[in-house]
C-alpha cells in the first residue's frame, strides 16, 4: 500500500534574488496516485516540480524519485519521468506529427514505436485534423494539447503535469481530465500542479496546498476539508438579507455570515446536524428559498490561506 515512489524531505529553494519559493517542504507520493500541488499564482508549484524533474537545483533538502537521488544525479531521473512544463515551449516549424514523433525519439523510442505512439496519442487527444499542420500555426489551446500529449510518450512511470489545462476550453479540460484518469488506471503516478480548485478536487487522490512557498495542508480532499472544521454553507438570495440578519440574531446557535455580495448571502453553519436542521426548519417556515452547499476546496483554501496570513502577522 504505502509504496512511496517520490520522497521529498525538508526541501527549500531560495532563488538568487532572495525569493523563498519553497520553504522546508516534505511529503511522499504513493505509486499510482494522482497527487496535486494546489496553490495560487506564485505559491511555488512550478519551482517544486522543476526541482523534482532534475531541472532546478534546490538550496537544501533531499528528493528521491523512483530510487534516484535527484539532487546528486539530476539526469538519471529523466529516464523515469515525463514533464509537461507550464509554458508551451513548442517548436513552431514542426508538424503535430513530427513534434510528437521526434520527442518520442528523444525519449528513446525506436522509430517504429515512436510512430505508433504518436498516432495513438494524436487520436486520443483529438488532434487528427491537425496532424500535418505546423504547430506554430495552431491556437494556444491546441498547442497545449500537444505538449500534454507529449508527456505520455514512452509510458513513463511518473508524469509531471504543470498546469496542463491552461488555455483549454471547458470541453478540452474535461477531455484531458478523463485521459489523466485513464493513465492513472493503468498505474501511472501523476503529479499535477494546478491553481484550479475544481481540477484538483475532481482528479486528486491527495492534495498538497502550497501558499507563499509553504505547505498549508496535505492530505486527501476529505482530510483537508476536516482541517477547517465541519461546516455547511447555506446560500440565500440577497433579497432576504435584512430579514435574515435580524432573525439570525434571535435564534440560538452559531451562525456566521461569510459573504454579503450584491446577489446572495452565504451563511456558515457548524456541521452538527441539529444546528443545520434548526436553521433549515426556520428557513422553510419563512418560505425562504435556499441552496445547501458542502464546503468546496476553494472555501477550504481561502480559509487556510487566511489563517496562514494571520499567523504571518502575529
Amino acid at each position, binding site marked *: 500500500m504505502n509504496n512511496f515512489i517520490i520522497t521529498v524531505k525538508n526541501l527549500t529553494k531560495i532563488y*538568487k534574488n532572495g525569493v523563498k519559493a519553497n520553504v522546508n517542504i516534505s511529503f511522499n507520493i504513493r505509486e499510482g496516485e494522482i497527487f496535486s500541488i494546489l496553490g495560487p499564482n506564485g505559491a511555488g508549484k512550478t519551482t517544486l516540480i*522543476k526541482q523534482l*524533474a*532534475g*531541472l*532546478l*537545483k534546490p538550496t537544501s533538502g533531499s528528493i528521491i524519485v523512483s530510487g534516484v537521488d535527484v539532487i546528486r544525479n*539530476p*539526469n538519471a531521473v*529523466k*529516464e523515469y*519521468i*515525463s*514533464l509537461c*512544463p507550464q*509554458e508551451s*515551449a*513548442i*517548436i513552431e*516549424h*514542426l508538424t503535430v506529427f*513530427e513534434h510528437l514523433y*521526434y*520527442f518520442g*525519439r*528523444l*525519449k*528513446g523510442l525506436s522509430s517504429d514505436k515512436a510512430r505508433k505512439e504518436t498516432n495513438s496519442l494524436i487520436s486520443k487527444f483529438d488532434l487528427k485534423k491537425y496532424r500535418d499542420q*505546423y504547430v506554430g500555426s495552431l491556437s494556444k489551446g491546441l498547442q497545449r494539447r500537444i*505538449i500534454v500529449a507529449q508527456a505520455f510518450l514512452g509510458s513513463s512511470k511518473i508524469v509531471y503535469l504543470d498546469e496542463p489545462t491552461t488555455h483549454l476550453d471547458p470541453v478540452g479540460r474535461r477531455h484531458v481530465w478523463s485521459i489523466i484518469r485513464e493513465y492513472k488506471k493503468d498505474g501511472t503516478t501523476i503529479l499535477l500542479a494546478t491553481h484550479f480548485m475544481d481540477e484538483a478536487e475532481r482528479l486528486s487522490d491527495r492534495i498538497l496546498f502550497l501558499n507563499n512557498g509553504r505547505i498549508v495542508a496535505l492530505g486527501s480532499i476529505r482530510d483537508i476539508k476536516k482541517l477547517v472544521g465541519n461546516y455547511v454553507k447555506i446560500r440565500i438570495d440577497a433579497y432576504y438579507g435584512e430579514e435574515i440578519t435580524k432573525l439570525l440574531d434571535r435564534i440560538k446557535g452559531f451562525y456566521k455570515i461569510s459573504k454579503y455580495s450584491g446577489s446572495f448571502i452565504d451563511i456558515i453553519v457548524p456541521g452538527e446536524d441539529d444546528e443545520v436542521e434548526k436553521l433549515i426548519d426556520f428557513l422553510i417556515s419563512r418560505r425562504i428559498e435556499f441552496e445547501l452547499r458542502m464546503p468546496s476546496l476553494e472555501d477550504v483554501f481561502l480559509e487556510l490561506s487566511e489563517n496562514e496570513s494571520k499567523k504571518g502577522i502575529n
Partner: protein
Amino acid sequence: MRVKKVLTDTYIILIINFMSLRTAIIPYIVIAIILPLGFTYLISLAFKGMITVDAATNMLVGVIVLSLSLSIINGIGQNLGQDRLLKRLELIASYPVSPGAYILGVSTVFIISSLINVIIMVFSGGIAWNILDRVLRVFPQLLSLLLIASLGLIGIGAVIGTRSSSLPQTYALTNIVSFIIAMFTPAYYPIEMMPTPIRILSQFLPTTHAALAARSLLGVGQYDIVKHTVFLVLLTSIYLFFGLRGIKWYEE
C-alpha cells in the same frame, strides 16, 4: 549503448533544426548563397581588369570570413538564446538527452551550412576573379582553417546565446559582435594598416588568425602559418569552452 543514444539524439536535434529550413528556405538561400554570390559578382564587375590576383585573393578570404561570421554568430546565438529564453530548452532538458547531444546537434546544422557556404564562395569567387586553381591547390588546408574558425565562431555565438538576459538583447549582441568580427578581422586589408587598439582587439578573434594563415597559404602574405594556426586552435578552444559551459541542464 550510451554512445548510440547520444548519436541518435544528436541526429534528431539536427533534423529538428534542419526542418526549420522548410519554412525559411528562401531567406536562407538569399543570405547564404545569393548575397555572397551577388557580392563577388558586383566586385568583379566594378574592378574588371583592375583587380590584381593578390587583391582578388584577399577579397575572397574577406568575403568568406564576413559570411561565416554573420551567419554563425547570429545563427547560433539566436538559436540558443531563443531555446533558452522561450523555455524550449526546459522541455528538451526534461528528456533523457545530454547537453552534449543538444549542442552538437545545433552546431552541426551550422557546420554543414558553413561548409556549403565556403564551397560555393570559393568556386564562385575563384571563377569570377580567375584564381580558382590557386585556391584549389590548398583547398583542404583552407577548408580546415575555416572549419576551426567556424567552431570558434560557434563558441562566441554560444557565449552570447547562453548568457543574454532577453531576446532583444540576444539579437542586439549577436548583430554587434558579428559585425565587429566581420569588420575587425584583417581580411580585406593588411593588418599593418589597422589602428593599434583595433589591431590588439583583432588578435582575440579566431577569424584573424584563420585569415592570416589562409593568406599565407594562398601566397598573398608572409605570416607564420604554424603560429597563427596554434592561436586559432587556442582561441577556438577557449570560446568553445565558455560557450558550452553556458549550456545549463541543471539550473542553479
